[in-house]
């Protein structure tokens, strides 16, 4: 369908639209017009991605200034889904384009996704590697410019990647035909043309209109420097599924050092020293050149593709000056690193936990080893330069050393953060998510932060320190309740259930949790998904249930699949789970909130007729990192500990249960099994669209009562939905126009107080109807209702009537 928001023509790839999608688009447009930031929460499963893309593409295609769209999502499945949505949208736009010229314009649109080498590699050997780090390293060995030049000078002398070599003769802008390429498409294209998918994407990036990748590619300075620095300022940045964005920000500036890592780093330092000795004998000029460059403070011009890792600190925090003298010489730098690693190893020998600020850490470091702060800040950069000079291979072996260098740079750059040393791990923890995302807000004019569950909305601007121009949450309009949220607070035996640490292993609680699973697996068709607050709890409770014979009851009705530590293994279990749901056998999936499965996997339709949240997914409060962060939040932003913990737990719970829906004809049960969910302050943190459907009775149930309600719900929902949802929870073009007219109306009313106005609004809407109707001659009967709406009088007549009786 096609409609207008103000003057902007929107092409939406469906025949109808949900009212909340329309409202979402309007707010989005307001944000883009104002070139500001926004936070938007839209119910899961109401087509957020398609609305977003639909509006932004319409925006891009309508205005002459090309604003690039940078669309960030959390996981690869979500990236691929967004790409598919985009692809379908563009196919639709091409099919409805009115003029040839327009069609050509739509066809020239390019959209791409980016992910790691590991996911994109098609080299027969390298792609077999299990670890992403190894793939990266081996890929660099085969593709960096030095190797490539040598191979070209002397073909056959050195191993190169053919897929990469095959691309040399193709100009970058011709690598890909215009259009939308999903990751699967790109891989296929790579296989068909024997070119490297990864480099195809990297080289095509300057020409794309839409790029879709994960948060890290924009937030993590190490990666962002390589991939995202060319993005122009007026690009539109979207963070979809952004409810955990603060964690990603924190992660990108935090680092862990463990004992084995330090040992490995020490070995790497030795290796570096050997290598330097060797090179001194064979090719001393190289080191001389490097030294000279460093003296001049020249930033080496390196092609992006060769860069193995950039500075871990944010661009604006980098020192724009020459590397200090004492680490300029390669052997001096190696000695410097050695000292640093030794120092860290000594610090690890402590018996108690130390938490300190970077300042005190640096002071101590200086006292013991005479290492100053300034050279430390250059540590990462200097290492990069040295590695390049030495033309090292298999960089993955140096990853530990890299981490140490990153740690050194970070610790000396950011004074605000905390370094803690709980034995035997060295945590460098970023406490403030605002640091990492600040450059993004500063650089790009429009940043959209959106998710299905991002309540309470004001938390995010507070934590990320920005001022949104639009901040909105949308209710879900439904003609009938498509989902039933239930809070179970006690078992049938009236024992309160809770995942609180003190009671969670109480046999009564475990049994009551088990009963909920058994009973729901009896009454719910197809798929049931259960989430636990942590891996530890899931693993112990699964074992306990099995020994208590509870799972035997479940086996009678459903197959059981469980999330395991291994990602691939879990994917296979997930696929089998889906097949069991499709096949009618039915299955239960046990998994963990905040775990692998809870992020980015949808359980819509038969894949999740019931989602059960066992317990409140609080973070582990004994964790030192969390404690430090809570302290920081309290001091810096006046966010109370309990408030943050509750918010964090509830957003994860909501995220889990929210994935059960897609579309308004889909239905599902959402079971919150913990007595703490009954508390009003907890429920208030749930997204509005879930909370509004929790009735007072449904907020405090025992298992048997919940089952009765669930059965009743399933009986009603299985009836035919009826077609009367159009106009209420589904809008046609006419409904959109009516709503717009009504809105104009209210706006106008604020200025002029006129009596006859309501009629006019009505007539505008109806004229819209007639216009639309006149295009289709034969459907008079269908429109009968519309005609009788106003009693058979035409609007113009009514308008002329003086109704003032």
């Amino acid at each position: 369908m096609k409609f207008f928001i103000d003057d902007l023509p929107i092409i939406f790839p469906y025949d109808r639209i949900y009212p909340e999608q329309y409202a979402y688009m309007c707010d989005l447009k307001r944000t883009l017009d104002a070139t500001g930031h926004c936070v938007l929460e839209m119910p899961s499963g109401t087509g957020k991605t398609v609305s977003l893309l639909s509006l932004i593409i319409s925006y891009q295609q309508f205005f002459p200034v090309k604003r690039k769209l940078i669309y960030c999502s959390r996981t690869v499945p979500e990236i691929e889904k967004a790409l598919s949505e985009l692809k379908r949208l563009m196919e639709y736009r091409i099919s409805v384009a009115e003029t040839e010229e327009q069609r050509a314009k739509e066809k020239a649109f390019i959209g791409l996704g980016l992910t790691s080498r590991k996911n994109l590699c098609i080299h027969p050997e390298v792609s077999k590697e299990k670890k992403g780090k190894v793939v990266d390293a081996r890929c660099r060995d085969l593709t960096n410019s030095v190797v490539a030049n040598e191979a070209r000078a002397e073909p056959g002398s050195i191993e190169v990647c053919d897929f990469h070599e095959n691309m040399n003769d193709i100009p970058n802008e011709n690598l890909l035909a215009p259009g939308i390429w999903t990751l699967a498409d790109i891989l296929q294209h790579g296989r068909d043309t024997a070119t490297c998918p990864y480099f195809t994407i990297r080289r095509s990036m300057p020409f794309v209109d839409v790029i879709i990748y994960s948060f890290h590619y924009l937030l993590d300075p190490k990666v962002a420097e390589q991939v995202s620095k060319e993005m122009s300022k007026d690009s539109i940045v979207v963070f979809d599924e952004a409810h955990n964005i603060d964690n990603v920000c924190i992660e990108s500036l935090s680092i862990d050092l463990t004992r084995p890592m330090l040992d490995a780093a020490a070995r790497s330092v030795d290796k570096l020293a050997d290598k330097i000795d060797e090179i001194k004998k064979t090719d001393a000029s190289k080191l001389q050149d490097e030294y000279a460059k460093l003296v001049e403070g020249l930033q080496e011009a390196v092609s992006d593709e060769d860069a193995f890792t950039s500075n871990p600190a944010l661009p604006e925090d980098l020192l724009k000056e020459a590397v200090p003298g004492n680490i300029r010489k390669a052997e001096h730098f190696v000695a410097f690193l050695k000292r640093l690693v030794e120092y860290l190893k000594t610090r690890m020998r402590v018996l108690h936990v130390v938490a300190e600020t970077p300042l005190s850490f640096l002071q101590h470091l200086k006292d013991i080893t005479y290492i100053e702060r300034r050279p430390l800040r250059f540590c990462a950069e200097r290492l990069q330069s040295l590695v390049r000079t030495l033309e090292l291979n298999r960089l993955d072996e140096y990853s530990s050393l890299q981490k140490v260098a990153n740690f050194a740079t970070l610790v000396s750059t950011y004074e605000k953060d905390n370094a803690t040393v709980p034995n035997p791990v060295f945590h460098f923890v970023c406490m403030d998510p605002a640091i990492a995302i600040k450059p993004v807000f500063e650089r790009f004019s429009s940043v959209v932060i959106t998710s299905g569950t991002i309540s309470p909305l004001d938390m995010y601007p507070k934590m990320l320190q920005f001022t949104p121009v639009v901040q909105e949450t949308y209710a879900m309009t439904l003609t009938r309740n498509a989902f039933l949220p239930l809070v179970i607070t006690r078992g049938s035996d009236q024992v309160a259930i809770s995942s609180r640490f003190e009671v969670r292993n109480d046999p009564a609680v475990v049994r009551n949790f088990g009963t909920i699973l058994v009973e729901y697996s009896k009454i719910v068709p197809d798929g049931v998904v259960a989430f636990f607050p942590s891996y530890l709890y899931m693993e112990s409770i699964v074992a306990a249930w099995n020994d208590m014979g509870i799972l035997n009851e479940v086996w009678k009705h459903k197959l059981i699949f469980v999330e395991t530590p291994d990602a691939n293994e879990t994917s296979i279990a997930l696929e089998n789970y889906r097949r069991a749901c499709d096949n009618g056998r039915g299955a239960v999936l046990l998994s963990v909130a905040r775990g692998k499965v809870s992020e980015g996997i949808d359980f819509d339709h038969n894949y999740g007729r019931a989602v059960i949240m066992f317990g409140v997914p609080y973070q582990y409060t004994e964790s030192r990192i969390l404690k430090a962060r809570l302290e920081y939040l309290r001091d810096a932003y006046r966010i109370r500990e309990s408030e943050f913990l509750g918010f964090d737990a509830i957003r994860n719970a909501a995220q889990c249960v929210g994935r059960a829906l897609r579309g308004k004809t889909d239905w599902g049960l959402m079971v919150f099994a913990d007595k703490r969910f009954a508390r009003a302050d907890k429920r208030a943190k749930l997204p509005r669209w879930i909370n509004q459907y929790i009735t007072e009775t449904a907020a405090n149930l025992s298992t048997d009562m919940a089952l009765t309600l669930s059965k009743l719900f399933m009986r009603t929902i299985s009836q035919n939905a009826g077609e009367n949802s159009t106009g209420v929870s589904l809008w046609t073009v006419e409904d959109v126009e009516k709503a717009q007219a009504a809105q104009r109306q209210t706006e106008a009313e604020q200025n002029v107080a006129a009596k006859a106005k309501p009629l006019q609004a009505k007539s505008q809407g109806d004229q819209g109807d007639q216009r639309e109707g006149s295009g289709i001659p034969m459907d008079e009967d269908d429109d009968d209702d519309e005609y009788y709406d106003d009693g058979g009088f035409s609007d113009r007549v009514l308008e002329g009537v003086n109704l003032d009786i």
Partner: protein
Amino acid sequence: MSTVCTARASYKKSQGLLELTSTHLQWTQDRKELPAVHVAHTEVSSLFSSKEGAAQQWPQFHFHFPPPLALTERETFKAQLTTIISNNRAVRETGVLQPPQTSIQAATPSSNDTTHRAPLPTPSRPSTSRAESVSSNQGTPANDPINDFHLRKKVLVKTPELAVLHRELVRTGHITETEFWEGREHLLLAQAASDSQKKGRPGQLVDPRPQAVEGGEVKIVITPQLVHDIFDEYPVVAKAYDENVPGKLSEAEFWKRYFQSKLFHSHRASIRSTATQHVVKDDTIFDKYLEKPDDELEPRKPRDDDVDMFIDLEATREDHEETGNENDVTMQAGKQRGALPLIRKFNEHSERLLKSAISTDGTGKRRKVDTGDSHGYYSQIDLADLHNLESPAGILLEMQDRQRYFEARAGAAASVEQAPRPAVDFPAALLQMRRDLEGWQVHLAQLKTERKATEAALVSMTQNVATRLDVHKRKADIPEEIFRQMRTCQMAANEFLRQFWSVIYPPIGETVGGPSTLAQRTAKAARMAGYLTKTPEKVMAIVNAAETAGLDRGRVQTGMQPTLDAVNKALEFWETRKAAPGSGAPGARRP
């Protein structure tokens, strides 16, 4: 294939021709081309000429020879078959040939002197003897559910009301078994369908739990099913069994030692198994098969299945470099090492069950019926309810002079449209209405109602309510015994009516089963009519009984009236038909 001798004989109540050729014994039903019974000589093993064969092991073919020809013809067949059978026996004794056992039964109903010849094509279920279409040479004895006694029994057991009716009518001999089931074929078919549905494997894990016996010993009962399940679930046990039984261990010893071994405990789906490990003593044989528990973070056997990109979790993990701090201790997967083998076992077991289900019913991925996109992605991201409803393409109505029809219709519509509508002058009409409504408040205040009429209306309403209450009060006071009689009588009458109308109405060609000839139908209708004429008597008897029990005669009568009406209607119909036999042949016309 030359015919040795022929005779008319009935087989399973159908008339047909029995032939003995040089190689086969065959019987063909009248008006049919192919022989329904076709037995090779070599398969004929025995011949019974009396009822002694009642205890046969296999089903038999039972031929009735019509009386006049019986003796001579039967004797010819007997003689011929005897030679064939004796030949067969001779051959079999030399061990050259092992044909399936068969026997033939023949009988002449006129005398009790019966001849049984019973060939059996293939040993199969006893019920095949009932089956009408024993196309024995096809090798697949078609199991006709409609005539299967067991199915009937099951249906009766399942529906008690039907069982009561069956007892009332069939056992007492009012109608025959076949008649009773006529028109109820769907019940039998449904039962047959549900019987033939194959049950999937039960989901439970194979986990033989020992039962404690007195004296501190434990006992595990081994059934063949359990053995099968164990072998299926743990191929390593099957391997051990193959290699050791009966060579090194006897069967009993094998299981005894298995259930005591570490291997068994590692197989038990219990986290306690790891704890009991040290209690269990070593076993030289089984410990060889012991595998390390699969409790590493990565599974022991990595798998390279191609996963759908939409659920590929590994891709996410490898999407970017590791960043951030490690998870806190509760969020590190696999900390409970003991639970990992269990979890893996769940996943494997589920997968195995799923595979066994999918391979048998062949339903692939339902969702992957996609529309042009190569990966089935669009169907997964589609919001179905946002599409316009697609009404199915209608079937075009073929009609003559379509054009003219529509033109005429359109013209008529147009004329109707034009005639009354445009005359209305809206402002004028509105003005008129306003004028009419002027002073309505005064008018309303003047409104008066007539007293008498109001009261009459109220009285009638009160009466109505009172009557309803009365009825309601008196409703459930018929004694159970009388009520039961009424019900039985009504049910029986209904059944007779059903039988009656079912032979009257559907014309012959359209019936499913049942008596096929006109005469049979007429006879049956007459019989049913006979039963029906007795219904009023029965009703009267009940009414009388009710009266003696002190019940209002009228009420029982009223209750039975609809039944009586229906019966009378049928009887009336029957009378007129009998009166006009020319036009009234059953099935000759349609209602």
